[in-house]
């Protein structure tokens, strides 16, 4: 088998991993859309804010340091202590829980029963707000995220597969971080699915996703469910923020990962958790294979962005609600 074929397989495997990274981001969108019908434009900013909070706690940064210095003329930056990673993650989770609570209290409560596009706009306002707030709180310079996950190509896999393709093939390159991300994503999805199927709160979540008024009438606290959903979405955002932030540092561009998750959502359906994973895998493989086979040699590269959307579009033409989405039943 020529080396080209094995390189193709390598691109395929890397595409799967990239897809997993996209799905991590898409999961947050799906959770919130399922439970409250809102397309949460702020999910990317939430991932950034969660990652910034984690790093801030880890390094003992003083929140709002820049603002305090500007107003009072002081020069404070750090508390002086550092926190172990595990504790910092817990605190960051607590912060996202508080965030979910405040969002529900201040925004969602007032906008019950509005049209989806109005709720979408509210999340846009929230995104703007969090962008400014996050930068004020933790500063807009780049921060290094280190939670102990190793990076770099996995030597073991590389060396042990180098025999396959002859001289031109150097072994499969799989990033260790991506492998960790895959495992974590699988665990996350399984636990989310188990949660929604087998626990009381999970059932309440599905009831709310189905019909708000019916859920209210059987006594489910709509507002409580929303707080829980946004908190879980915040947790997922934190995981996504950690995975992406470990690759390139925690800075503003991290919030742009949400754009990569959009084709995943479209393809997999807005309301399905397994759909987010399968959609992510298809998009990841599709765009990487296209770039490898056609984009780089024939079209000069950088085709991934638009091809992901074209791919989602092609799927949608045949299945307008996405692969796993709820069938749109139109009543006249």
């Amino acid at each position, binding site marked *: 088998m020529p080396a080209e074929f094995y390189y193709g397989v390598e691109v395929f495997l890397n595409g799967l991993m990239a897809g997993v990274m996209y799905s991590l981001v898409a999961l947050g969108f799906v959770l919130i859309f399922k439970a409250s019908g809102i*397309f949460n434009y702020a999910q990317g900013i939430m991932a950034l804010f969660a990652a910034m909070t984690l790093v801030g706690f880890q390094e003992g940064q003083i929140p709002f340091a*820049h*603002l305090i210095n*500007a107003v009072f003329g002081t020069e404070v930056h750090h508390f002086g202590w550092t926190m172990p990673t595990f504790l910092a993650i817990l605190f960051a989770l607590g912060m996202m829980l508080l965030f979910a609570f405040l969002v529900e209290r*201040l*925004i969602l409560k*007032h*906008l019950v029963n*509005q*049209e*989806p*596009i*109005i709720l*979408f*706009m*509210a999340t*846009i*306002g*929230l*995104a*703007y*707000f*969090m*962008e*400014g*707030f996050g*930068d*004020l709180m933790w500063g*807009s310079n780049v921060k290094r995220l280190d939670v102990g996950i190793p990076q770099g190509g996995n030597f073991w896999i590389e060396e042990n597969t180098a025999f396959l393709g002859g001289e031109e093939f150097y072994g499969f390159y799989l990033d260790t971080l991506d492998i960790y991300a895959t495992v974590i994503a699988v665990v996350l999805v399984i636990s989310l699915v188990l949660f929604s199927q087998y626990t009381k709160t999970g059932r309440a979540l599905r009831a709310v996703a189905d019909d708000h008024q019916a859920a209210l009438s059987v006594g489910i606290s709509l507002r409580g469910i929303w707080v829980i959903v946004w908190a879980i979405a915040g947790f997922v955002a934190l995981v996504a923020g950690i995975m992406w932030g470990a690759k390139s540092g925690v800075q503003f561009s991290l919030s742009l990962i949400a*754009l990569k998750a*959009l*084709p995943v959502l*479209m393809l997999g359906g*807005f309301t399905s958790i397994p759909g987010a994973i399968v959609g992510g895998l298809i998009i990841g493989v599709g765009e990487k294979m296209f770039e490898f086979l056609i984009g780089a040699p024939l*079209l*000069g590269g*950088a*085709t991934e*962005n*638009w091809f992901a*959307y*074209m791919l*989602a*579009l092609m799927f*949608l*033409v045949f299945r*307008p*609600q*996405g692969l796993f989405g709820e069938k*749109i039943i*139109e009543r*006249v």
Partner: protein
Amino acid sequence: MLYREVGEFKTSYAADQQTFPISFDKIAYFIALAIAFFVVPLVINDYWAKAILLPFLIFGIAAIGLNILTGYCGQVSLGSGGFMAVGAYACYKFMTAFPDLNLIICIVLSGGVTAMVGILFGLPSLRIKGFYLAVATLAAQFFLVWLFNKVGWFYNYTATGQINAPEREFLGIIISGPNSSPEAVYLVCLSFLTVLALIARNLTRGSFGRKWMAIRDMDIAAEIIGVNPLMAKLTAFGVSSFYVGISGALLFSVFLGAVEVGEVFGIQKSFLVLFMIIIGGLGSIFGSLAGAAFLVLMPVVLKNVMVGSMGWPVDIAAHFEFLIVGSLIVFFLIVEPHGFAMLWRIIKEKLRLWPFPH
């Protein structure tokens, strides 16, 4: 007391169906137009033109275009940035290929080109609905930006891919290029906005508008009563892209003068125009202009207040700008979910009766 409607009876169908049936409204509108056309050019300077008025006028046109598609016809589109890019590049090609062609005609022609591109990318809307349709348009957005970056023909094979608007005159006055005066560019954009807004108002009040709104409300029912969904959706895409293309052409030729497609027509533009119409009010021409004014002016005013007058450091001011704009958006949505247009409508209704309560 402001509205004196006593004695206002319409005696012909034409009078009954005019855009501003209440004469107070009509007079106020003409006064506003007179101020805009005759008074403002006398007091305008470069900063007011370039930083406040031109962005408002240009994005107002884009917002009206998107509102026709999303607000009146219900098709969510996130491709406005890409379509503005089509308008800009089409204008550039017309300007450079036909140096003697009048700039106004170039701009209208580029609107036409964009309309055709818009119809092409609107074909999936026949099958895909709702937020999912935003994908097709996002595909258009990213594909068009990549295309204009990649294919040398669009930017006349310059080394970096940036396009520059050469100097053009209209009736002896320079309206593009660096030597154009603020009054000239302001009047060009204002004229375009006035004409296009009038056309949009009448389109949406007529049978086209009714067809679009029927599709938006319940497209299957519309089909049953005889509205052709293919024609309605494609005409919505076409007209909307025409407007968005003209706004892109104006942005390039008259306002910025030099454009790099990835930065100026990226996805943030698409989102910005969508935000404008949502916060201004879907399905309303006034709403498009109000939303454009809010999202264009608010950051500039905030910046001038915070940095200029209160002397805050620029980055803190920038962060606060986001904070304030975000909270204002949420605040206005809670107060009036249907946008500024609805607020304006309610205020007008109350004003018509004031000082009586009902």
